[in-house]
């Protein structure tokens, strides 16, 4: 305090003032310094717990990927994609029919969820009166449906699509319908979110020009919401590709050794084929299952990357 060399020597403050300035500085310093040790320790512990959670998640993902690549490595070749499944010659067997099955099933899912999901979202956001009790009931149920376990949809598919009213049998079309029902709530919710994000000034601007509500929605709101809707659809498709549980109930466990068709004959998909291989005792088939996991992982990472890319590319701040 006493040797305030630079400043006081130039300005030559009276001693009393110097003391006052020094005291004020100490008070400020004490105020700004973090005093409570316990508070600091608590902060460190909290951050450690957060990091522990993150590390566990990352480690388990890394372990899974490493295992899949190491275990499936020997079979990561072209045969994997071009050869049909076989238990007689497991060292050359592949996923050909399962890949076709997945393409058929997912193609059907896309054809179903885009018009149904987007249509439902448009109706709920733009036309339905949110105060109407029926609409609120529908709204609530869609949110609940998004959380229903997938096996429940499998049972529904078995009872109503494979058998029952639709009686399609154990075919790819039944798988498509079942998976479409499973991911439809996700698509509706994501599309509603995207439509809601379009500011109402865009609707008002169109309507003020003499557009009908439908013209305003179809020509302005939907195009503006398109990236969000597309992202929702892609994420739903990614989920559908990875689903095995509901498909087990609607016929996708058939060990198919011929290229499937959409409306007749048995079918299998990538995840159910992995399941078929993994439950068999031969070591070659275990390796094949691991290789299938690698294929699934790469496919899903690709699809999710596209969704993220689209979201960032078209993200708009209004």
């Amino acid at each position, binding site marked *: 305090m006493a040797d305030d060399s630079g400043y006081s020597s130039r300005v030559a403050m009276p001693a009393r003032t110097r003391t006052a300035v020094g005291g004020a500085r100490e008070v400020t310093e004490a105020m700004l310094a973090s005093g409570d040790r316990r508070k600091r320790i608590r902060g460190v512990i909290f951050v450690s717990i957060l990091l522990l959670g993150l590390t566990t998640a990352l480690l388990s993902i890394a372990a899974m990927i490493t295992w899949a690549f190491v275990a499936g490595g020997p079979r990561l070749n072209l045969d994997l994609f071009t050869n049909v499944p076989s238990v007689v010659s497991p060292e050359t067997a592949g996923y050909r029919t399962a890949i076709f099955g997945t393409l058929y099933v997912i193609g059907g899912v896309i054809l179903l969820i885009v018009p149904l999901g987007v249509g439902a979202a448009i109706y709920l956001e733009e036309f339905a009166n949110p105060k109407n009790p029926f609409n609120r009931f529908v709204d609530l149920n869609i949110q609940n449906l998004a959380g229903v376990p997938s096996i429940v949809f499998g049972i529904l598919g078995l009872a109503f699509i494979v058998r029952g009213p639709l009686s399609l049998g154990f075919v790819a079309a039944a798988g498509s319908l079942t998976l479409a029902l499973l991911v439809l709530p996700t698509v509706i919710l994501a599309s509603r979110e995207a439509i809601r994000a379009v500011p109402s000034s865009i609707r008002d601007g*169109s*309507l*003020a*020009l*003499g557009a009908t509500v439908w*013209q305003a929605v179809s020509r302005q709101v939907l195009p503006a919401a398109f990236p969000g809707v597309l992202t929702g659809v892609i994420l739903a498709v990614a989920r559908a590709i990875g689903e095995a549980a509901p498909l087990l109930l609607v016929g996708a466990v058939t060990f198919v050794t011929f290229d499937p068709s959409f409306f007749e004959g048995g079918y299998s998909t990538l995840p159910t084929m992995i399941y078929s291989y993994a439950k068999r005792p031969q070591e070659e088939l275990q390796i094949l299952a691991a290789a299938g996991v690698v294929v699934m992982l790469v496919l899903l990472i690709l699809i999710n990357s596209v969704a993220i890319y689209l979201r960032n590319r078209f993200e708009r701040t209004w």
Partner: protein
Amino acid sequence: MPKATTGDTVTADEDAISPPAMAVTGALLEDHVRRVPGVNTFELKKVNVHYGDMLAVKDVSLDIPHNEITAFIGPSGCGKSTLLRSLNRMNDLIPAAKVSGEVLYHGVDMYGPKIDPVQVRTVIGMVFQKPNPFPKSIYDNIAFGPRILGMKGNLDEIVESSLRRAALWDEVKDRLKDNAFGMSGGQQQRLCIARAIAVQPDVILMDEPCSALDPVSTGKVEDLMLELKEDYTIVIVTHNMQQAARVSDLTAFFTVAAMDDTSNRTGVLVEMDETRNIFSNPKDERTANYVTGKFG
């Protein structure tokens, strides 16, 4: 008709030189009729607007003359925007809003059973508080209206003439394909005006069109309004009294009144007159307090 209107305004300005002659006597409506004989675009008779149970605007009767700029001023919550939106039935978009009384447009009740609100909005355009261009090219912003209405004629020409009319053509003619979001706020607002003009309306309603703009852009929009009144009836809601004084021919002053039976605050029309009377010689004390800044 534009010629006659302009001539009439000049006469009115000459009157202003002798204020006593313009003493605030006689019925307000007769005064309007004198200015533009027999041509009122809108005649409002005892118009009430409800939002659910709440009365937002009470008992407004006023006339809006053809090819003039009419300004609605008043403190926040006085219902001036609500009233403006009832002129082209934009209030219909709010489910709980209900308009009663008569809104006559060229003598036709706009809330009559045969009237289609979509058709109403093709002849009565609107410009909003915040510029709201569509997230598309400048060209497509203008072309949207003519396209949905199936207007005949060369679309390129409609776009060019609308942009010229909005004094925007020279600034954007080389980047018509660019996204309208890349324009400045003032340009965006003039684009919205050009977009409204493109469908060839009769009336343009403007809801605080300059509140989001800087003074230079505001000046440009105001110049544009003065030009456009040759061809269009313009009704503008503004919080900016200088703006009302600068551009409008007539001013209606609204205020908020607490109704006896409820705690709701309701907008009422205090007075409507030629703008210079409202600002220099208002009849009502509340108007005088508002325009001199003592209240509101």
